[in-house]
């Protein structure tokens, strides 16, 4: 027999169980039910939550882009244009403003957004203007053809 004295029978199970448990439970405090209190349930829920958080970092970028697109669509419909027409004509006019900035302009700088919408509208009507109009530039819109005076 190895454990001949009483002191040898005592096992030291590890001094920091409390802090290891708190490390997990502190991430679970806002959960619903017993998984915010009981370690065995909390461990599973916390692992699931971290997996969802990891996957959500990519999904967040997708959601933000759809939100920007719906905001830009709403603002452009206020000015009588549709979102695909606006974006295509801005690209054709070589205005490389991304959707994040466009949606911020639509909210905080409505006049700047209106001017961009008018530019896109002028570019959209360019074909009509060339076919039906008198060859003059639409008023108030800068185009590629800059005449030096």
């Amino acid at each position: 027999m190895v454990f001949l004295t009483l002191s040898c029978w005592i096992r030291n199970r590890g001094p920091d169980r409390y802090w290891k448990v708190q490390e997990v439970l502190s991430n679970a405090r806002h959960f619903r039910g017993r998984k915010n209190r009981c370690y065995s349930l909390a461990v599973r829920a916390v692992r699931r939550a971290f997996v969802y958080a990891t996957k959500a970092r990519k999904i967040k970028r997708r959601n933000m882009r759809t939100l920007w697109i719906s905001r830009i669509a709403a603002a452009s419909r206020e000015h009588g244009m549709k979102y695909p027409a606006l974006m295509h004509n801005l690209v054709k006019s070589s205005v490389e403003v991304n959707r994040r900035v466009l949606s911020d302009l639509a909210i905080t700088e409505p006049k700047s957004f209106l001017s961009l919408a008018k530019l896109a509208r002028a570019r959209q009507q360019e074909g009509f203007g060339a076919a039906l109009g008198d060859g003059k530039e639409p008023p108030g819109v800068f185009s590629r053809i800059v005449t030096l005076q």
Partner: protein
Amino acid sequence: MSSFTKSAQQWATFARSWYLIDARMQPPGKIATMCAIRLQGKHKPIYHALSDVGDHVVVMNSRHIAFSGNKWEQKMYSSHTQYPGGFKQVTATQLHSKDPKAIVKLAVYGMLPRNLSRRTMMQRLHLFPEDDLPEDILLNLTEELPQPREIPRRLNEYSQEEREAFPTLWTPLPQTFK
């Protein structure tokens, strides 16, 4: 608008408007899309699904909606009473005669997103079968939306001058031709 105080600008941006739509001689689906967009708040650049930015929509004359094609006889609305043998199917005509608001209400309900805010958005939709609106709703209205469909006129609603001015495909024969 830039001369408003910050609080006044905030109030004006997030205020809930009341829109009026006249559904006389309009297809209920087109009315419903207009309603659904404004109930969700998707017509505003500040839209977010959680922000509760939807507006109120009042639809009047819902008794006088006009389905295209043969939908009054062919479109079926189904429901189940959850008792055995309780599957009910009614045509659009029967449903409209029982409840003149139901067609527009079901159309809008199906066009809203399937989440918990759908019920609150439906609470903000106000349907009236005729054009007599109650006082408190009339006081709240801010804007009337244009009708999606141009109502065609009957032949007897055109004046004689318009009928004569309409282009013909052939020159009429002279009266003396035999």
